[in-house]
């Protein structure tokens, strides 16, 4: 199975799209202005929405959103280019009461930025038809990942324009050869000296090392030109070996790509590139050349008529300074992961009728047809994940009832609460156990300035006190945005000690943000949360550095 689609951008914004069926007689309304964050100018023709309720700003940028239920309401405005589905957005939490007409709720849209430049080779020749890619650095499930987040293609002059770059986020820029179909047996000469130098994925401003890449952060609406890169070349190497599925020989499909960066989800979206690859002959042999020194992942799937492989396997290959021989990859069949949802302590009576929604997604690639489906697990109850391969998955678990929290997720007795799930790696009992508990507490935060004026749109971050590293901190923290009264409440949290801090700047999972939070722990309010408690915290916004 070979995928020829180049890139697929999915919006993974966690916006519930079910329509509301509130029938309270006196509904609330919210009104205000939508303005451009860069220029301050009001923006007409912008759609402001809450679930299925929509309003469009008029020529002066004013909107009025009606028919809103009482309680916390998150309204979102999506900027121009909405027609493509992925415009820049602004979002605000407001708390309204029945019949209230709340005014002065303004939304600032940080417009997308643009990066452009020219890509040349070592002869200063423009490189046509190569891929220029944005890379987001993010902590995800305990590890720092480099994930693709955007792409543009160079034209015949080597020029590229990268649109739709989110402002305020740090990105790296990479030049990559892009997708190609590879013959299983390369014709490259056996003598490395007779081979053309290989193209190295090169990072702005011109390094082959990810760690040495310079991050770019753009302002809303900014157009940064002259972001040029001269692509590096190195000695080219080959790898050879045999690929199999289920211990049997036969034609296999393979792909080879650098281990980092990789496709996947980051921020509020996801990006997937087709990986260079091809198909072997019936003997499963490969000889892949034109490779630069570095760490690669080879993916092997059995070759079938349908889009859904029966076997899947990956192997890591490191090329240092010579060809690598006798690689062997054996793709394995799907791994059955039985699971159960259990209560710790006394379960609720009467039992809950809702289900936990479990959505496993591969972390570094697009799922195969039929590989992922939403599993609804009764609480408590049994479920089964039977479509997964021996790969890394993130388990997105939704539908946790308000009165409970996830105490742990364990696979084969080992906690995977803050790690990817790796089916097939469990020792002993290979079941997935999700443990819910009811003995949690809540933190109600209020953010106000020195004159006690409430601050809306502040970001409140709640961090467990006992985290060992920045990676675990990124996976364990919870955060949210205060409403117009400066208030925000967490969901139910495990009892324990927490650090709480508020900041007016956005917080994300980038190393910069997490690093600042890590270093600011001594500036935080400490909260000891007992079982069943509701702790109140009042904070002034802190400066993070």
């Amino acid at each position, binding site marked *: 199975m070979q995928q*020829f*689609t*180049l890139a697929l951008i999915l919006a993974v914004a966690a916006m519930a799209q079910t329509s509301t069926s509130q029938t309270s007689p006196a509904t609330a309304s919210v009104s205000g202005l939508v303005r451009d964050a860069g220029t301050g100018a009001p923006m007409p023709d912008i759609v402001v929405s809450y679930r299925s309720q929509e309003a469009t700003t008029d020529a002066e940028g004013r909107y009025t959103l009606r028919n809103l239920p009482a309680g916390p309401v998150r309204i979102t405005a999506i900027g121009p*280019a909405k*027609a*493509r*589905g992925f415009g820049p957005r602004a979002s605000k939490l407001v708390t309204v009461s029945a019949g209230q007409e709340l005014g002065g709720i303004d939304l600032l849209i940080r417009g997308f930025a*643009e990066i452009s430049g020219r890509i040349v*080779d070592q*002869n*200063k*020749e423009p*490189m*046509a*038809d190569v891929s220029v890619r944005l890379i987001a650095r993010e902590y995800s499930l305990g590890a720092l990942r480099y994930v693709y987040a955007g792409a543009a293609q160079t*034209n*015949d002059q080597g020029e590229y*324009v990268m*649109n739709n770059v989110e402002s305020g986020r740090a990105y790296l820029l990479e030049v990559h050869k892009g997708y190609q179909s590879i013959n299983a047996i390369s*014709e*490259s*000469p*056996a003598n490395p000296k*007779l*081979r*053309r*130098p290989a193209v190295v994925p090169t990072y702005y401003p011109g390094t082959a090392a990810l760690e040495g890449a310079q991050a770019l952060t753009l302002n809303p609406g900014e157009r940064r030109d002259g972001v040029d890169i001269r692509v590096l070349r190195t000695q080219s190497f080959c790898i050879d070996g045999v690929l199999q599925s289920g211990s049997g020989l036969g034609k296999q499909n393979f792909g080879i790509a650098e281990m980092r960066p990789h496709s996947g989800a980051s921020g509020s979206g996801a990006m997937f590139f087709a990986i260079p690859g091809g198909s072997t002959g019936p003997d499963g042999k490969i000889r892949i050349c034109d490779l630069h020194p570095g760490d690669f992942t080879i993916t092997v799937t059995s070759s079938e008529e349908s889009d859904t492989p029966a076997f899947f396997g990956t192997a890591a290959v490191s090329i240092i300074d010579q060809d690598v021989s006798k690689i062997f990859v054996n793709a394995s069949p799907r791994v059955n992961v039985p699971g159960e949802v259990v209560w710790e302590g006394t379960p609720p009576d009467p039992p809950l009728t809702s289900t936990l929604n479990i959505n496993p997604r591969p972390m570094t690639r697009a799922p195969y*047809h039929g590989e992922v489906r939403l599993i609804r697990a009764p609480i408590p109850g049994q479920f089964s994940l039977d479509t997964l391969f021996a790969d890394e998955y993130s388990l997105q678990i939704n539908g946790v009832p308000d009165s409970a929290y996830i105490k742990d997720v364990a696979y084969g007795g080992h906690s995977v609460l803050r790690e990817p799930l790796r089916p097939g790696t469990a020792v002993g009992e290979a079941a997935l156990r999700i443990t819910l508990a009811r003995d949690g507490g809540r933190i109600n935060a209020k953010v106000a300035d020195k004159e006690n004026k409430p601050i809306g749109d502040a970001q409140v971050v709640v961090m467990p006190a006992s985290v060992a590293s920045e990676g675990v901190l990124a996976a364990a923290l919870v955060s949210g945005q205060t409403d117009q009264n400066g208030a925000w409440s967490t969901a139910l949290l495990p009892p324990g000690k927490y650090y709480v801090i508020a900041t007016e700047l956005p917080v994300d999972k980038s190393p910069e943000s997490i690093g600042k939070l890590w270093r600011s722990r001594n500036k935080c309010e400490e909260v000891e949360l007992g079982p069943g408690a509701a702790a109140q915290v009042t904070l002034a916004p802190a400066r993070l550095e």
Partner: protein
Amino acid sequence: MRQPEGRATVHGRIGQMGILANCRRVPVIFYLLGQLAGAASITGRIVEDHSGSPVASASVRIVKVGVRGLQADLETDGDGRFDAPELSEGEYKIEISKPNYLNASVRLRLSADETSTSLRLIRCGVITGHVSDGKGQPVRYALVLAMPKPIGGGPLLPDFRTGHYTTVDVRGNYRIHNLPPGQYAVVVSYGASTFAVGSSGSAATGPSLGSGFLFYPDNARPQFLGISAGEERRNLDFAIQASGVHAVSGKVETASKDKYWLALSRVDQPALAVAVTQTQDDASFRFNGVADGSYHLFAAKTDGSRNSQGGYLHAEPLFARSRVDVLTQDVADLNVRPEKGHAATFVMRLAESSGAKGPCPATAQVVVKSLEDWAVQLERRASLSLEKAATMSMLAPARYIVSVTGLGDACYAGANPILDLSGAADAAPIILTIAPAGSIHGHLDTGGKSSSSFAVVLVAEETGDDAPVVQVSIPDAESRFTFANLHPGRYRIATEPMAKTSQSHWLSDPARTVEVEVHAAKTTEVNLTAPSGPSEKR
């Protein structure tokens, strides 16, 4: 000027006036049968055909004929030069490529000395311009395509190869590259073409602009622009006028929650959809922004997924087609009744005149491509064996063009037939004839001069003013030359002094050509006389 022996001289024009032009992805093949004083080494210089500038960073792959693998895998330096030392004697093939250039291929025989060669790469052309609406605003996200002129007066088909299409940027500019020299129609598709992901009938461009396409310079008479090697054609601008736009809506008769993709394609230009949409959960559909006109309404059942070329058909697809005329008002309550697809049968045969099978393979592949834009992927392939009928079933009731692939270099298929399944019934079996290639052997009377100082140039003339395919051969020590693996048909042949050809163009005087007919599986003998006297003016 002496008349060459053999056939009568035909005076006439050749396509692009002597520029080495190649509108197909067939590499230009050079036959150097000379005894070059060559070593077991070869050095070379690659220059651009139209300008003579050196081509740096071109990929040079050297293969020894009959030996697997590459003898050398090189790149030209900043001055276009490459150097492959330490090769053994024998016959070699050198393949040169670079993005935005046509691939070139040279065959030569190396004997014990250093061989030096100079080769010309044809650079592709570029088309660039601006797309705006009636108010001068850029029409972002519109798609501009360069559609090659079809051979033999066939129907226009959109071409989604790399670089041949592009999206208009935020400032309204577009740039198409990678165009082999040839003739192209340029069209901008805005709003809801198949290629625009997420169109769903609601215009990605301004709602007042509607959805449709615009040929350059106008839809009534699309103009074919000649693009020559290395040419940058600028200011091909489009101004899309908002016309009265209407909605077209209705329902597909289906019991379950099936997903259908629907497309509205103009009756006079069905290759490009004007609007594309999907059914909602209740099987209703709606196109917005449709201008007045006569349309085909196509519907096909999909499995819910799609890529940029359109939706993937369901495992058991159903189809519907009907006519919709939009005249100054919305069209509502259309009822679409889907039915099963049709079957088509294909038989591959050897052409009668060709005799034995020869180099033609026993099996090949038939490819069926839709001439109509249904917003779903309708292309199908099947294996073909000589004289054995192959059937494809569940085909959409559309019009298709049928071609044969996998015949190798030495065997060719005749003209591509049209398969019309738009009527109610299955069509009659389609016969696909194949024939072995022909060749030309000849002798050049050089009037005493060295034979390697001349080039013999062969130009294919498949249709009237289509850009020709050019091949060059350099006569050997006995003044003989050969062209092999030729598609049966009409050709023109001429000779040129090599010194002139190395300046810029291969052909300078079309008047001195000889018409030659190539037949399947046969060799045509041609005798030519080299021009004498001072060099002619171009």
